[in-house]
């Protein structure tokens, strides 16, 4: 299973094996990673699963669709060029080693 490194708001790093097909959000939730709320459960409706994709692999993540781009306009922490909604990033073997950082606040 591809590994993803999550950086919590406090700076702690957590490495998780994420099953292919799961979203980056779902693996964070089921493993108790801090810094994510994901109120809508991955329906791209709440913008409380905001993350920053760090490092080179950011370019390997498929581009955000229209709904995600719109919702990114609603995040409460600063929106940066590497901002994504973690519920919209589906794990694939190519994303092995992905690093995502959660912002200080989600709502």
């Amino acid at each position, binding site marked *: 299973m591809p590994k993803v490194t999550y950086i919590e708001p406090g700076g702690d790093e957590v490495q998780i094996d994420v099953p292919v097909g*799961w*979203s980056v959000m*779902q693996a964070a*939730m*089921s*493993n*108790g*990673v*801090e810094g994510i709320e*994901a*109120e*809508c*459960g*991955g*329906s*791209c*409706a*709440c913008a409380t699963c905001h993350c920053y994709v760090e490092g080179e692999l950011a370019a390997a993540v498929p581009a955000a669709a*229209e*709904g995600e*781009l*719109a*919702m990114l*306009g*609603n995040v409460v922490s600063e929106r940066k060029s590497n901002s994504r909604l973690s519920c919209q990033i589906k794990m694939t073997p190519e994303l092995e080693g992905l690093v995502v950082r959660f912002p200080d606040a989600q*709502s």
Partner: protein
Amino acid sequence: MVIVGAGLAGLTVAETLRAEGYAGPITLLGDEPHGPYHRPPLSKGYLLGETQEAQLVMRAPELLAKKNITLKVGTGVTAIDRAAQRISLADGSTLDYDGLALCTGSRLRPLPLAGADARGVFGLRSLADSRAIAAALETARNVVVIGGGFIGLEVASAARKKDKAVTVLEAADRLMARVVAPLISRFYLDLHSGHGVDVVLGAMVSELVVADGHIAAVKTKDGREFPADLLVVGIGILPNAEIAQAAGVECSGGIVVDACSRTSDPAIVAAGDCTARRMADGTFRRLESVQNAVEQGKSAAAALLGRDREFNAAPWFWSDQYDVKLQMVGLTAGFDQVVTRGEPKGNKFSTFYYKGGKLIAIDSLNQPAEHLTGRKLLDKGVSPTPEQAADIAFALAGLLG
């Protein structure tokens, strides 16, 4: 602090209490066998086998433990003694509280017909329900859904994707009549018909035909009979307000709360599907949505800490059917004018609802950006003219300044 009901509202109360600096004990009690999980996928991806159970988890137990929130699952609360500030649990034990949050959610409205308890008849509220329907879908041939509301239609959509013969029986003369305009109802009728669903409007279900303890068919008043080996009943929900009512907390079709989630008892707050909010004009508003559970949950936690946090944002909701995402914001009740923006034939448009010349709600189909602009317009009380709303060349976001 004690929270009854470990759903989205209950979890939000618990986490907000901690986030707001409350350091004392927090106990979150739920009568289901598992901790908080996401319900929306239960009528969508989970039914199709696209989403697994582990993917529905809202919070891992370790995270709650880390936040020093005590989660007790399989623990039903049976009574509240308000004078003693003590609750009783199903196992006979009791628990004292300083502040109590009632987040008991809702349950399915039962179908008042003989045979409703036959095998092959399901409602959809919990993970257990969805699991049972998903299993039954594997072998079912004829699926009948009673109720053309969101959940019924989402189930119909999932069943069609699994190539089942699907009939939807709706009593009203259009789909989702309680919430959307006739134009949107019409769109969804065509959408479902186009996907091969037999949608029957004005269908008064009169009898369930049961053979060998299993559902076999559904009969309607006009004498028609629809064969069914899987029947899903989606005729709405009832708020779980009984323990509050029995304790003398004011209830009116739900636990009555104000804009800050306070009940008639100063030590008790309530949030989510179980509430009926008293509005300024004296009417009661019931919402059954993720947003309402979260917003009322946050207000409830603030109220327990003696702070006022009003939930004033425009209500929003969504529904996924086939490849169409419907996103709604505002409440359509009492609209006197509807304006369409975009082209309904292209599955991408919005309808703007007006009352007395003021924008009150927007339904968007596959228009996420417009939906979000709409949320901001309604939250700020900014009302484009109907002409502006209808003109796709006019940038609505420009009105937000």
